[in-house]
């Protein structure tokens, strides 16, 4: 089978914040770089990020220190964030935020002309001793939009070569396992092309669509993680899914934590500000896992609001029209459009909603994908030619629970770091892996399978069933027997999806084919999530089990590593060796 090949020094799959920060770095280096994205880059999910990018630029508080931010992030991660990576992110952060500003990002401002910072959950001063910190840099409540458009504009300026509306189908690997590029499909024409390159960067974002209720865009189907798992590569900490406290009930659309940062709070049906009971100090700005669980307890204890008692309320009206319209204009718009309430007058009905994938492809600080075999401890080995950044990666700065505003920082810090590393590696003569015709053929097998399908179930039905399974069996609270049932359902779904049908085989703008290919990836991510959740027999961060309610540092102060070949869960050491500060030792985590 012959296939057109285009050759680059590096390709980036994904045009969100992480992908475009990486491509920008490489475009500036002069190496031939292509960015492949299944949507026009500014339509990537990063555009939805609202509240801001957390970083100790010492604007709101001139005393602020990146080490305090580091402490908060380690604590937030429930101690399975890698301290070397967190140290890197928090210390390099200010430089990357200033770069964004110099690129033109329209941050909101304080009177003195510096970047506006707002309080966000889990942020403290002086290693948890000095009260709430305001550390989240914001462009009103449209920070992701401002960031993504700014990065797109800079990529235009620097001549990045875009392949917009191209869909990456699978990795191409040479016989020895080295990554040689990807097979991708032009959505507009249906043409299939081999993108051959020395470095392949996955910046494919999250996979919130494995759940039926999510804040994530419809395109967040975990394609990068899915492609890697299919290629037999491992994924780390996949049980760790963040449920955001404030998804608009019934719609999943997010209202930012910045609402609580600006002074909003949650109330139950009695009008009680219940977070005072669960987190006496931080209250509504405790870690997201803590707030989401508290909300669920209120609901389960019969103090939820509405006719079905299935949500709580986010109260904002006391902040006044002026603050709401200047600081949270997008939230006012969303609340009106979806919940049909005006937050200036009424509270917004909210419920914990699937939001963020803390797990993903394990990488080091340079974005290099780590190869692990089950149960492996010790020295990392790398997958030649493959890199991952952003939500698809697990570097891991978020551990078991991400702090608000830390994802955008993760995107730009590690997108840039990967770009810098690849630039240097290319200069040092990084080699191109040479796949055989068979290798290419293998990477095309999925396309062939769908195109040959005639009978079987429909993609939409299977997707719905998969999402409901995840929602019902792997939600905020988890239980062994319920998860075992879920795992069985997924095994059944795997067989049925393998023989599902694609009706439409046409070439031009065939979105049915894309949705079919996405379904395969949803399944891979869902299964990794399920097996990892079942395997981690403790409660930590976002992973909360009725049958194992306590954190178990003796056995589980480690990353979980899901091996798709055996279906088994292994462990990997957490890095406790930052370079310039002392290790933050695990403590009981309270807010």
């Amino acid at each position, binding site marked *: 089978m012959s296939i057109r090949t285009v050759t680059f020094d590096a390709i980036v799959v994904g045009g969100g914040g992480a992908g475009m920060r990486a491509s920008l770095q490489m475009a500036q280096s002069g190496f031939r770089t292509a960015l492949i994205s299944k949507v026009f880059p500014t339509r*990537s999910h990063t555009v*939805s990020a609202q509240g801001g990018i957390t970083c100790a630029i010492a604007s709101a508080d001139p005393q602020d220190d990146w080490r305090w931010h580091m402490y908060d992030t380690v604590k937030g991660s429930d101690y399975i964030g890698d301290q070397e990576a967190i140290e890197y992110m928090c210390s390099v952060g200010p430089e990357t935020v200033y770069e964004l500003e*110099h690129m*033109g990002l329209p941050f909101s401002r304080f009177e003195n002309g510096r970047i506006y910072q707002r309080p966000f959950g889990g942020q403290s001063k002086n290693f948890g001793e000095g009260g709430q910190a305001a550390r989240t840099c914001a462009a009103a409540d449209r920070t992701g939009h401002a960031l993504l458009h700014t990065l797109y504009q800079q990529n235009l300026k620097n001549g990045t070569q875009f392949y917009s509306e191209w869909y990456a189908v699978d990795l191409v690997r040479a016989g020895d396992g080295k990554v040689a590029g990807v097979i991708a499909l032009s959505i507009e024409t249906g043409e299939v092309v081999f993108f051959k390159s020395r470095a392949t960067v996955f910046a494919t974002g999250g996979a919130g669509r494995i759940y039926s209720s999510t804040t994530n865009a419809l395109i967040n189907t975990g394609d990068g993680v899915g492609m890697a798992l299919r290629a037999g590569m491992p994924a780390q900490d996949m049980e760790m899914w963040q449920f955001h406290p404030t998804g608009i009930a019934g719609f999943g659309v997010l209202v930012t934590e910045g609402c609580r940062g600006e002074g909003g709070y949650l109330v139950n049906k009695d009008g009680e500000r219940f977070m005072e009971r669960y987190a006496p100090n931080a209250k509504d700005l405790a870690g997201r896992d803590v707030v989401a669980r508290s909300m669920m307890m209120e609901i389960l204890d019969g103090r939820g609001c509405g006719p079905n008692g299935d949500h709580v309320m986010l109260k904002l009206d006391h902040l006044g029209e002026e603050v709401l319209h200047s600081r949270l204009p997008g939230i006012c718009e969303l609340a009106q459009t979806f919940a049909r309430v005006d937050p200036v007058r009424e509270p917004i009905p909210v419920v914990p909603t699937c939001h963020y994938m803390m797990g993903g492809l394990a990488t080091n600080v340079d974005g290099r994908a780590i190869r692990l075999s089950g149960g492996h401890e010790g020295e990392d080995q790398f997958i030649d030619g493959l890199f991952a950044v952003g939500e698809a990666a697990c570097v891991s700065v978020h551990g078991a629970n991400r702090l608000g505003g830390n994802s955008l920082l993760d995107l730009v810090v590690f997108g840039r770091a990967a770009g810098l590393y690849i630039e240097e590696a290319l200069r040092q003569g990084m080699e191109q892996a040479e796949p055989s015709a068979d290798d290419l053929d293998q990477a095309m097998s999925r396309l062939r399978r769908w195109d040959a399908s005639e009978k079987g179930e429909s993609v939409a039905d299977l997707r719905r069933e998969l999402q409901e399974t995840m929602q019902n069996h792997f939600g905020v609270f988890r239980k062994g027997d319920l998860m075992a049932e879920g795992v069985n359902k997924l095994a059944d779904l795997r067989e049925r999806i393998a023989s599902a049908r694609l*009706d439409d085989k*046409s070439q031009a703008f065939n979105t049915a084919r894309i949705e079919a290919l996405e379904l395969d990836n949803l399944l891979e991510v869902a299964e990794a999530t399920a097996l990892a959740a079942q395997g981690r027999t403790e409660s930590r961060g976002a992973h909360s089990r009725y049958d194992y309610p306590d954190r178990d540092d003796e056995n589980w102060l480690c990353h979980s590593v899901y091996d798709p070949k055996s279906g088994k869960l292994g462990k990997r050491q957490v890095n406790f060796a930052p370079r310039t500060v002392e290790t933050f030792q695990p403590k009981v985590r309270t807010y």
Partner: protein
Amino acid sequence: MKVSVYRYNPETDREPWMEDFEVDTGGRDLMVLDVLAMIKERDPGLAYRRSCREGVCGSDGMNINGRNALACVTPLSEAAPGVLEGRKPLVIRPLPGLPVIRDLAVDMGIFYEQYEKVQPYLINDEPAPAIERLQSPEERAKLDGLYECILCACCTTSCPSFWWNPERFLGPAALLQSWRFLADSRDRATEERLDQLDDPFSLFRCRGIMNCVSVCPKGLNPTRAIGHIRSKLLERAV
């Protein structure tokens, strides 16, 4: 309720046509995008773009009962009077004025090209400080109503001047972005930017018809931005 959708598949259709679907919404005031998703479950071949489903990514601009809008934030009750109650069909067509690739997906190429022409990025070659460049809240406030554009093309494809001169008139979206950078206290390329617009077509084809303002789903006002640039150009001329 009845939904009438524009169909065109270049591989099988010689001409575009309208297909009618009967959809049971149970009387709920769904978003138009939800209705399209229901149709797509029955006919997976229906092509349209969507991503965020909350009005921030700009993917699903389309023409709904004669008006350009984002399907994901247009409830049936706002599509047109009578649609929600089933008294009138919901009529969905692609954005006008751009070539159709398939069904509701249009070729946005020319729209993006016009955007690129205005150099939509900050230009400032002065050495940057070690921290951010300072900007007062008042200076920053000048960017409100400009930077929020999501490039959905609802405005540009409703502009008669653009229909007539899509290659030469930049269109409201691109001009709004041009002003976004002209208005930025940090930008240093005012003259260069104005030089580029100073011809009879790029900007001066705007006839102030204001279609762009009335359709913008983000409530932005390209006409006003065009007015600001126009005055700058005229000021310069005297």
